[in-house]
């Protein structure tokens, strides 16, 4: 593995670390140590996805080390969700009726790409992520921000394949609903 490849992985690792450590400097350190460890370990990996999984494995150890050293307990993800106790059915009952039809059908989003350029949108995006249940948010983050495959997410979260599929779907349902209510239905431009 060469330095360029490591750099490519760096971004992904940093996202992962930031979401767990909530501190840029600490996250940078953890990633730095991970990459150093990876460089020293040499080049026994060929496929990119194997490298990524391996690097995240190292990073998780670094993050765990940090928690131990700090002797503090952060709760990972820490969503402020009220339906944490019953994340399984509550969401879908709000979104679909008994016959499986949309209750609040998705509305048309006006120029969604424009939202990506607005700082305010990201505040809403973050807020909506935090309002997902912890497991849903974590699955979504691993899939869409870290870029893991579903298999890897199941392993990371130590859940069955069907469970992580459900988490991902509910995360998308919840996030979509939230963004629609908090952003697209309120900020619609003419």
């Amino acid at each position, binding site marked *: 593995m060469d330095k360029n490849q490591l750099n490519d992985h760096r971004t992904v690792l940093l*996202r992962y670390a*930031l*979401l767990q450590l909530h501190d*840029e400097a600490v996250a940078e350190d953890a990633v730095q140590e991970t990459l150093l460890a990876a460089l020293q370990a040499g080049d026994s990996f060929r496929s990119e996805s194997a490298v990524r999984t391996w690097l995240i494995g190292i990073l998780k150890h670094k993050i765990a080390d940090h928690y131990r050293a700090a002797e503090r307990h952060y709760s990972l993800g820490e969503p402020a969700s009220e339906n944490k106790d019953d994340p399984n059915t509550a969401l*879908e009952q709000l*979104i*679909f009726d008994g*016959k*499986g*039809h*949309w209750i609040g*059908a*998705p*509305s*048309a*989003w006006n120029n*969604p*790409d424009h*939202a*990506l350029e607005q*700082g*305010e949108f*990201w*505040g809403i*995006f*973050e807020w909506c992520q935090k309002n997902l249940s912890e497991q849903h948010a974590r699955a*979504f*983050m691993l*899939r*869409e*921000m870290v870029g893991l*495959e*579903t298999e890897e997410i199941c392993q990371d979260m130590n859940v069955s394949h069907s469970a992580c*599929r459900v988490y*991902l*779907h509910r995360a*998308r*349902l919840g*996030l*979509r609903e939230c*963004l*629609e209510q908090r952003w697209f239905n309120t900020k619609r431009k003419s």
Partner: protein
Amino acid sequence: MKTCKDISGLLSESMDRPLKWREHWAVRLHLLMCRHCSRFQQQVHFLRKAAKHYYPNENDKNLPS
């Protein structure tokens, strides 16, 4: 006949794995008739795009206080 609830699940899964032949055609057929699920499809793609652009902490700097 699959419901919107079923189809939305398949649309979400199609982001993570290739759909089976049957699933694929069930989705396509449904989308021809259902604009709600068509929107849902576009919007889950948008979620992926947004997640790729999202960078925690850096975005905090852009937030209005």
